[in-house]
C-alpha cells in the first residue's frame, strides 16, 4: 500500500474531515502529491478540484514539496522593522535556496507567511509547527544547520518563555509580555465560578446581564454580545453551537494568544456560559494553525475541566445542562477570521465567506444557529456573569464599557499586552508603552486607521478608534509608504478571490500606490486612489474588501503632506512605463541589440 493510501484510509469517510486529512498528508509527506489528491477525493467522495481547491487555499498546505522541514518566516511590517531582511538572507544562504524554494538536499524549504501573532517578538518564524521568536541571522543559520543534521525543530528551542509557555505541554520560546493587568481579564477568578453562577440563573437572565453590561464584541466588528446570544437562542432548531474565534489573524494582534496561554480556563468557562445562554451543547474552538503549539496545553485544560465537572454532562451541579468543547484547526488564512469563512473552514472547506443573510445566528456551523465570538469576548462574558453588569459598566466609557486587551508592538520600549479601560487616549498608551517619539500609530491593524501626531488625543473606543487589539507604533525614521505597501501586499495575498473588486481592485490599488510611492504619481493618481478605494470598500462582499483600502485612504487623510511631497505637481500624466526596461528581456531572448530609440512624441 502506498504511503498516501495508508494515511488517507486512517480517516473517516466524512467530507468534513477534508482539512484534517490534508493536514495529515502535508505533515507526513511535506506536501500533498497528486496521488494523495485523487485518494482523498475518492475516499471522501469529493471531486479532485474540491480537494485541490482546499489545498491551494491555505498557506500551510502545498501541492509541491516544501522540504522535509519547512520554515515559515513572518512577513509582517513589524518583522521587517526588526531585521527580517538580514534573517531571510541568512536562511537563504544557509539553506542554499531562495524563499519559495527547497534546499538542494530537500531537507529545508523556505516560505513566507502573513503575521503569526508574535509581533511583540519579531522576527519570528514557525518551523514544523514550532515557534521561533526574536530571530537573528545567527539563530537562523543554527536552525537550518540543526534541521539538516536531523534534529527535530522542537530540539532547537534553547530557552522557554514565561508562564505556561514553560509548561511541559507547551515548551515554547514565546513570551507573554503581559505589561498591564487589568481587573476584568486578569482580575482574580475562582475556576468554575462563572459556570456555577450561570446555571444558577435562567438563560434569559444570563443574556440580560451581558446585555446590561454593554459588552460589545472584541473581535473587531463590535456587535453587542448579549443581543447576538438572544438572536441565536430565539431560532428554533434541534441544535445550536457556540464557536470561539481564535483565528487572530489581523497583523499586530496577539492578545488572544496570551489569553489562550494563560487564561484558557476562563475562556472555556465563557464558552460554556454562552452555551448555556443560547441553548447549545457543543462549543467549537477554531484555533489558528499558527497557535497549534498550544493545542496539547488546551486539550489538557479541557480534560481538567471535564474532571472537575465544569465541562461535560450535567455540569456545575445543573440537572440539565451538558456542554463540551472540541478544537478545530485552521491552516493559515487571514480570511478564516471572518466569521462565516471560519464556519466554512471549520466544516472542512475552503474558507470563503458566505452570503448573508442568513447570518450565523440563523444558520451557522453545520447550518445550525451559531454564535461566533472572539476569545476575549467570551472570557470577558465569563467575568461579567460572576461580577455583575454594574461592576463592568462602571469601567470604560458610557458607550464602550469595560476594558480592552491591546497588543502593542513596533517602535516602543515595552511591546506586549495591556489591559486598559476604554477611553484611553493614544498619547496615554504611547506613554505606557514607552514611545515618546512615535510618528504614526496603526490602530486596528492594516484594516484599521493610521493615526498621525495630530490624532494622539483620540481615544480607543468604539465611537472613535475601534480596534480588535492591534496597535503598531512607528518611530520617527519609519517610511510610512513602506508600511502601506506591506499592508496592501497582505490584503492582496489574503483576499479569498471571490469578488472582483477585492481580488482585482486591491492589486490595482497596490500598483497605483506603488507608482505614487516611486515618485511617478500625479494629482490624478491620488484622485484615482481615493475613488478606487471607495469603490472597493463599497462593492466588496465581506469585511476584508470593505476595509482593505484603509491603509491608503487613512494615510492619505492623516498624512496628506507625505503624498504631496511624493507626487509630481502640475503634471498631467507621468508614466511608470519604461520602454528601455520593457524590451530588455525580449532582446536577450532573441539575441538582439536593444536598438529601440525612444521616440520623442511627448
Amino acid at each position, binding site marked *: 500500500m502506498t504511503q498516501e493510501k495508508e494515511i488517507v484510509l486512517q480517516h473517516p469517510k466524512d467530507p468534513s474531515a477534508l482539512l484534517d486529512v490534508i493536514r495529515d498528508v502535508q505533515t507526513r509527506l511535506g506536501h500533498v502529491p497528486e496521488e494523495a489528491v485523487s485518494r482523498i477525493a475518492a475516499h471522501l467522495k469529493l471531486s479532485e478540484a474540491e480537494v485541490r481547491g482546499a489545498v491551494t487555499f491555505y498557506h500551510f498546505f502545498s501541492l509541491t514539496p516544501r522540504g522535509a522541514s519547512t520554515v515559515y518566516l513572518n512577513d509582517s511590517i513589524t518583522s521587517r522593522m526588526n531585521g527580517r531582511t538580514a534573517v531571510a538572507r541568512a536562511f537563504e544562504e544557509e539553506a542554499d535556496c531562495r524563499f519559495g524554494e527547497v534546499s538542494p538536499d530537500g531537507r529545508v524549504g523556505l516560505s513566507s507567511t502573513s503575521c503569526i501573532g508574535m509581533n511583540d517578538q519579531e522576527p519570528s518564524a514557525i518551523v514544523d509547527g514550532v515557534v521561533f521568536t526574536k530571530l537573528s541571522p545567527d539563530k537562523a543559520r543554527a536552525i537550518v544547520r540543526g534541521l539538516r543534521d536531523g534534529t527535530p525543530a522542537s530540539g532547537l528551542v534553547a530557552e522557554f518563555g514565561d508562564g505556561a509557555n514553560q509548561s511541559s505541554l507547551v515548551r515554547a520560546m514565546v513570551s507573554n509580555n503581559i505589561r498591564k493587568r487589568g481587573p476584568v481579564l486578569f482580575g482574580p477568578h475562582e475556576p468554575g465560578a462563572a459556570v456555577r453562577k450561570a446555571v444558577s440563573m435562567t438563560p434569559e437572565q444570563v443574556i440580560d446581564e451581558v446585555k446590561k453590561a454593554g459588552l460589545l464584541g472584541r473581535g473587531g466588528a463590535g456587535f453587542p454580545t448579549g443581543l447576538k446570544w438572544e438572536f441565536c437562542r430565539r431560532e428554533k432548531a434541534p441544535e445550536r453551537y457556540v464557536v470561539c474565534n481564535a483565528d487572530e489573524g489581523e497583523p499586530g494582534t496577539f492578545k488572544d494568544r496570551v489569553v489562550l496561554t494563560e487564561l484558557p480556563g476562563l475562556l472555556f468557562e465563557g464558552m460554556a456560559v454562552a452555551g448555556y445562554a443560547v441553548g447549545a451543547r457543543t462549543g467549537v474552538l477554531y484555533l489558528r494553525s499558527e497557535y497549534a503549539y498550544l493545542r496539547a496545553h488546551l486539550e489538557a485544560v479541557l480534560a481538567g475541566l471535564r474532571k472537575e465537572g465544569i465541562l461535560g454532562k450535567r455540569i456545575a451541579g445543573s440537572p440539565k445542562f451538558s456542554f463540551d468543547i472540541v478544537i478545530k484547526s485552521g491552516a493559515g488564512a487571514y480570511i478564516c477570521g471572518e466569521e462565516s469563512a471560519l464556519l466554512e473552514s471549520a466544516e472542512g472547506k475552503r474558507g470563503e465567506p458566505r452570503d448573508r443573510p442568513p447570518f450565523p445566528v440563523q444558520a451557522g456551523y453545520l447550518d445550525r444557529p451559531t454564535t461566533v465570538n472572539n476569545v476575549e469576548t467570551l472570557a470577558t462574558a465569563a467575568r461579567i456573569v460572576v461580577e455583575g453588569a454594574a461592576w463592568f459598566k462602571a469601567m470604560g466609557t458610557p458607550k464602550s464599557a469595560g476594558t480592552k486587551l491591546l497588543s502593542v508592538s513596533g517602535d516602543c520600549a515595552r511591546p506586549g499586552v495591556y489591559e486598559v479601560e476604554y477611553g484611553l487616549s493614544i498619547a496615554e498608551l504611547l506613554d505606557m508603552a514607552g514611545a515618546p517619539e512615535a510618528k504614526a500609530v496603526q490602530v486596528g491593524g492594516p484594516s484599521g486607521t493610521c493615526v498621525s501626531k495630530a490624532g494622539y488625543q483620540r481615544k480607543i473606543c468604539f465611537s472613535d478608534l475601534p480596534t480588535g487589539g492591534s496597535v503598531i507604533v512607528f518611530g520617527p525614521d519609519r517610511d510610512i509608504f513602506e508600511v502601506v505597501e506591506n499592508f496592501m501586499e497582505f490584503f492582496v495575498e489574503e483576499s479569498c478571490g471571490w469578488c472582483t473588486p477585492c481580488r482585482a481592485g486591491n492589486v490595482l490599488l497596490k500598483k497605483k500606490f506603488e507608482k505614487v510611492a516611486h515618485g511617478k504619481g500625479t494629482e490624478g493618481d491620488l484622485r484615482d486612489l481615493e475613488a478606487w478605494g471607495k469603490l472597493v470598500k463599497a462593492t466588496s462582499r465581506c469585511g476584508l474588501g470593505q476595509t482593505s483600502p484603509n491603509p491608503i485612504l487613512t494615510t492619505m487623510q492623516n498624512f496628506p503632506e507625505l503624498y504631496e511631497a511624493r507626487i509630481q505637481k502640475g503634471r498631467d500624466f507621468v508614466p*511608470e512605463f519604461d520602454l528601455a526596461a*520593457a524590451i530588455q528581456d*525580449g532582446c536577450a531572448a532573441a539575441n538582439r*541589440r536593444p536598438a529601440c530609440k525612444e521616440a520623442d512624441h511627448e
Partner: protein
Amino acid sequence: MSKPVIATASLAGCFGCHMSLLDIDERILGLIDLVEFNKSPIDDIKTFTKPVDVGLIEGGCCNSENVEVLRSFRKNCKVLVSVGECAIMGGLPAMRNGIPIRECLEEAYLNSPTVDPEDRLIPNDEDLPIILDKVYPCHEVVKIDHFLPGCPPSADLIWEAVTALVEGRPLQLTYDLIKFD
C-alpha cells in the same frame, strides 16, 4: 467648417473592436457625413497628415512598435480613447504576463511540436519590433482620456461615445450599454 477628424489604431488586439465600429450598420453613412478619418486601417492612411480630434485605440502594447504608435497617437490626438478590454486591461494577449517572455518565445519558436527542427530560431531580424516583457494597458504608457469597456464594446456603445466626443457632448454610457450578461 471642416469636419472633426478621427484616427484609429489596432495595437495588440484582434481587430474585433474595429469590426464592432463597422457594425454600426447604416449609421456608417451618417458617420462619414459627420467626421473625416485620418490615420486608420479603415482608410489605410498610414501617417498623420493633420491634427486629430479623437483617437480610438484598440489593443494594449505588446511590442515596441505598439508603444511608438500609441505615443504618436497621443501626440497627434486631442482626445484619446481606449476601446475594449485589450486596450484597457491588456485583454487576452495579457494572459502571457505571468510567464517570462523567454519561456514564451522558446515555447513558440523552439519547442513547439510544429516547429521545423531545421528552423529553430527566435525571430531576430532587426526590422521586427521588439517584444515587451509583458503586455501593457494603454493608460500605463500614455494618458488616456476615456475608456470604452467590452470585448468588443458594442456598436451602440462606440456610436454613442464617438458621436458624443465629436459633438462635444458629455459621455453618457447608460447601464444597458455597459451591461454585458
